Each structure stands twice: as C-alpha cells, then as structure tokens.
C-alpha cells in the first residue's frame, strides 16, 4: 500500500512537473522579446518563472519518492512502475497542452514501458542465476526529466 502510494505520487509529480515546464517554456518562447528563436536569455527568463520553479519542485518530489521507494522495494519493481509515467506524460501533453498525439506515439510509449520493464526484470536475483552472464546493477537511467 505504501509502495503503491509513493510510486503513484512519483509518477503524477513527474508528469505534472514536465507538463508545467513545457507550458512555461512555450509561454516564454511565445513572448515578442524571444521571437527570434531560442537563446540562452530564455533560460535566464525561465529562472524567474514560477511555473518553472513549480515544475522543478515536482521533479524533485518525483526523485525523492523514487529514492524512498528504492529504500524498501526492489529496483526491478520500482523502475518499470515509474516508467508508466511515460504514458501519463503523453496523456497530459495531449489533454492539458492540446498536443496532437498519433497512434504510433501512443504505441511507442507503451513499447518503451515494456522495454524498461524487461530491463528491470533482467536484474531480478532469480534471473541472475538463469541468465548469462550475471546482470549488472544498472540503476542510473532516468533522472527526473527524462528519466526525466
């Protein structure tokens, strides 16, 4: 129950955080002062935007929940469970930002979640005996934004 709650908070915080960051950056890019395209000044401008801070805070919440869950649950469960956030990100982008999402993009997101699940499952202790050679302790992939 505790694991499900923490992972749910992590996944929702990451998706909402990314959505806020996207909304804020598109808002900054649409300002007349940035009409010439991307410039480093936009990043300076972004540091003064409350939406950017809110999005960054939510990504930190995601990271804290992810690390907390890892302190008692298996990485092989936590990693694919949080990877379901890819689908939620696409859903939020479609629903709240009005981005058109083709069927291939939905299917691609589902395959990514499946791939992450397989990567995580390959690290299970019972698989370590069956698989050759011994699996590595890969824990690094996916911080907040892309990972987060």
């Amino acid at each position, binding site marked *: 129950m505790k694991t499900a709650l923490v992972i749910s908070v992590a996944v929702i915080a990451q998706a909402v955080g*990314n959505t806020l960051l996207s909304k804020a950056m598109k808002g900054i890019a649409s300002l007349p002062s940035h009409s010439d395209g991307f410039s480093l000044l936009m990043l300076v401008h972004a540091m003064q935007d409350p939406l950017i801070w809110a999005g960054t805070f939510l990504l930190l919440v995601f990271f804290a929940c992810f690390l907390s869950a890892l302190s008692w649950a298996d990485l092989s469960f936590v990693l694919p469970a949080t990877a379901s956030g890819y689908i939620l990100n696409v859903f939020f982008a479609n629903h709240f930002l009005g981005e058109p999402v083709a069927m291939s993009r939905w299917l691609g997101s589902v395959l990514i979640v499946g791939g992450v699940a397989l990567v995580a499952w390959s690290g299970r202790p019972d698989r370590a005996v069956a698989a050759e050679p011994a699996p*590595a302790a890969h824990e690094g992939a996916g911080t907040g934004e892309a990972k987060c």
Partner: protein
Amino acid sequence: MLTGIMVLLVVFSNAAGDVYITRGMKKIGDVSAVSPLDFLNTAKRILSNRDFLLGVFCLAMSFFSFLAVLSWADLSFVVPATSIVYVVTVVGAKFILKEEINRMRWAGTMLVCLGVALVCIP
C-alpha cells in the same frame, strides 16, 4: 534537425551524468552515516569527488537542454524520445564501467529503441 540534436544532448549528458555519479559513488564506497560527524565526513568526500561533481554538472546540462527543447518541441515527443537514455546508459555501463549485460537486458533496451523509433515517426 535541431530538435534531434537537442534530444541527443539531453540523452548523452544524462547518461554521462549517471555513469560519472555511479563511478564517483563506487570510489566513495558504502555510504552509511550513523553520527553527524560521519555524515559531514561523507558529504565532504562526496563533494570533493571529481567524478561526482562532473556527474552533477552533466545532469544540470541535461536539465537545461531539456528546458530549451521544450520551448519549441512537443512534450509528448520529447519525454518518450529521451527515454533512449536507458540504451545509452546500458552501453555506458558495459564499456565504461565494465558491467556485464545479459541478453534480457539487451532485449529490453532494443524494445525501448523500437518504442522511441515509433514515437519519432512524424
């Protein structure tokens, strides 16, 4: 074209950050502070570790690149596309950290690649 380059920058700086931080933490060893003094000593060891600091720099670069690309590209494209970081990190773990990767992990990374390819279809 620029979007592709920026996504690759997000991915490679993120993967490099993960690899550097892993290498740094392995050099530091077991982190199990029991007293405030232990905690301070551990923090000092971590913050003076070159690999760890390089890793943090790479992750910061990844985050700002991510912000930059979000200013013009769709979130529903950028987030799934950057998941290719799983593949790059596995390759980095194999060739830089000399970790062994089993067949199932390679199959998973290939599935991620296939998913990213589908996401990138215009």
